[in-house]
């Protein structure tokens, strides 16, 4: 079973790890990212690791009018797409978002609006196919706004709600929607953060979970698993207490 896999934000740490897992199973890939040199290096790597075919498309997801060109190209190359993963995003500097409104809006746009634009365009293409999995990377940060990163969290919460509605809409068509909520992952995005070692997963570990969740058509994936329980507790803390906590 050689799957056709489309990945947006393919140079991100988690996306690259997921792509490797699919490559090892002999998938055909369609990779989308901004940086064409990095895309080329990743393509060569995925071919060496067993991908049957890797096509690339250079695009900045914030230029939403280019998204239809991208989906046209992907469906032209592969005919159908079995798995689409929307993985692009940034980690905004929360303090800067508090004083620089333009920056805050731009970051929200990258992490929510452009992702929603991709999901919408992919849904349009996948619905008539009547099959496939549409996966998007959310975050545990979207489960509750914390003073440390609530702009990022708000964008991820938007994805959560959007994915929930889209899942219900596409259910009848046979297309499945998965939202992935990683906890701390050691990637380029988090390289400057001082993450607690015990709670920080490797991209490969997260990618294993993602691949399994896609295969099993799970609705929501917390990865690694223990984040489900951590976030369950965090969501249940009464606001009167939560607002006094330093998180």
């Amino acid at each position, binding site marked *: 079973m050689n799957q056709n896999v489309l990945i947006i934000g393919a140079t991100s*740490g988690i996306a690259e790890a997921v792509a490797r897992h699919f490559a090892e199973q002999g998938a055909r890939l369609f990779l989308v990212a901004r940086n064409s040199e*990095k895309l080329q*290096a*990743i393509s*060569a*790597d995925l*071919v*060496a*690791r067993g991908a049957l075919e890797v096509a690339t498309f250079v695009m900045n997801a914030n230029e939403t009018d280019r998204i239809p060109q991208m989906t046209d190209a992907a469906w032209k190359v592969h005919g159908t797409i079995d798995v689409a993963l929307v993985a692009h995003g940034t980690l905004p500097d929360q303090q800067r978002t508090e004083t620089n409104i333009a920056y805050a809006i731009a970051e929200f746009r990258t992490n929510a609006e452009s992702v929603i634009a991709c999901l919408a365009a992919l849904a349009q293409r996948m619905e008539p196919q009547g099959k496939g999995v549409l996966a998007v990377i959310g975050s545990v940060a979207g489960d509750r706004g914390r003073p440390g990163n609530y702009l990022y969290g708000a964008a991820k919460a938007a994805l959560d709600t959007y994915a929930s509605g889209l899942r219900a809409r596409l259910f009848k068509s046979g297309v499945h929607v998965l939202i992935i909520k990683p906890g701390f992952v*050691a*990637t*380029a995005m988090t*390289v400057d953060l*001082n*993450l607690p*070692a015990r709670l*920080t997963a490797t991209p490969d570990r997260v990618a294993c979970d993602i691949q399994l969740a896609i295969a099993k058509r799970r609705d929501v994936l917390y990865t690694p698993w223990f984040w489900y329980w951590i976030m369950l507790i965090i969501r249940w803390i009464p606001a009167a207490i939560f607002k006094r906590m330093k998180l």
Partner: protein
Amino acid sequence: MSQLLSWGRYPRRPQIPHSVNWPEDVLPSLAALAAAGHSTSLAFGCGRSYGDSCLADSGHVLAMQNMDRVLAADWESGVVIAQAGLTLSELIRIALPHGWFLPVTPGTKFVTLGGAVANDVHGKNHHVMGTFGRHVRQLTIYRSNEGVTQCSLTHRPDFFSATVGGLGMTGVIVAVEIQLRRVATSEIEQRSIRFGGFDEFFELSREHDSSHEYTVAWVDCLASGKQAGRGHYIAGNHAQEGALDLAPIGGLQMPIDPPFSLVNALSLRAFNTLYYHRQMKKKVVSNVGYDSFFYPLDRLQQWNRMYGRSGFQQYQCVVPQENGREVTRDVMRQISKSGSGSFLAVLKQCGKLTSPGLLSFPLHGVSLALDFPQRDQVNERLFTKLDAMVHEAGGRLYPAKDAHMSAVHFKQAYPMWEKVEALRDSHLLSLFWKRVTQ
């Protein structure tokens, strides 16, 4: 982020990692460190060097493991170009299904390509294939003063020979082009022969080294008197017929740091006796998978934690052929007398093939490696005696394993060190290099 130690966890100088995901991140990372007051750093791969050669003087290292992409692979010729953070383990997983294997492999597959080059590692086939550096076709390196540069035996050969075995001092290796070797199967035809003493080992070596690509011996260094020098001699060739399968991933893991070393006189003696008698027959011939032949210790992940929090040191020396037999015997006697050996003493006859690397460790002669639980005074006394014996015989110690060699001995044993120092990137400095050159 968790801090890093070397494999021997001694000296205990935890390193703060700064992850490098793409080659172009190297120079900005070095610049950022310099701006933060850390004028030097060091590329850090899997941290499999035992002593302080993988530790930065500043305590800040560039973590290379995320830079692990295969950039080009030609399965007709077996030439692979990959980023330096790719591990040998991954490279095997990628190349073996196409019928290619590493031309030279150390005793663990959990090292990066960059680390294998920087330490010019060798393996059980040194007498046939030489060191890892002999199979490197080209290197791509970032240097803080000139940016990206390439070198090979023909292009900037001086720089190439300073970088192979150069302990990461000449620049940050970001990509390695390597010639792999063809294999018909993933199995090794192994011959395991029990021997009673040193003379028998040298006999076996003479007999088997020409007909077997891989040879190595395990010696019980606690045995004395009549049994001194007893051990197992293991020889192997790539099997011509059999499966071409990847070894399963996984294995056991040493989950905790025990409060004290589990390796002590009592456990050692028991282990060595059991190990020696594990095979009742004098000679056993069998086909085994590449994993169990080359990487038996990799099956217990983080086995280094067995030595407890204080860690351990590995003592690996090579003694030139002329005096190899006598000096190795004397060294073993001295260790036996001290009663602090290891559960795996490894003896290997190294061959005549020279390496392009200026600081390459192997010599035509006999190499001996043993692990010692870290006990400051006991080790120091013993190592001082052993060092004198090794150096008097014209031998030397392996920087990749070292945490104690004196500057005098280093400079005497590696006279080309000044050429490497002259080409050193001023933004790179390891604790080892500082210790033995400054």
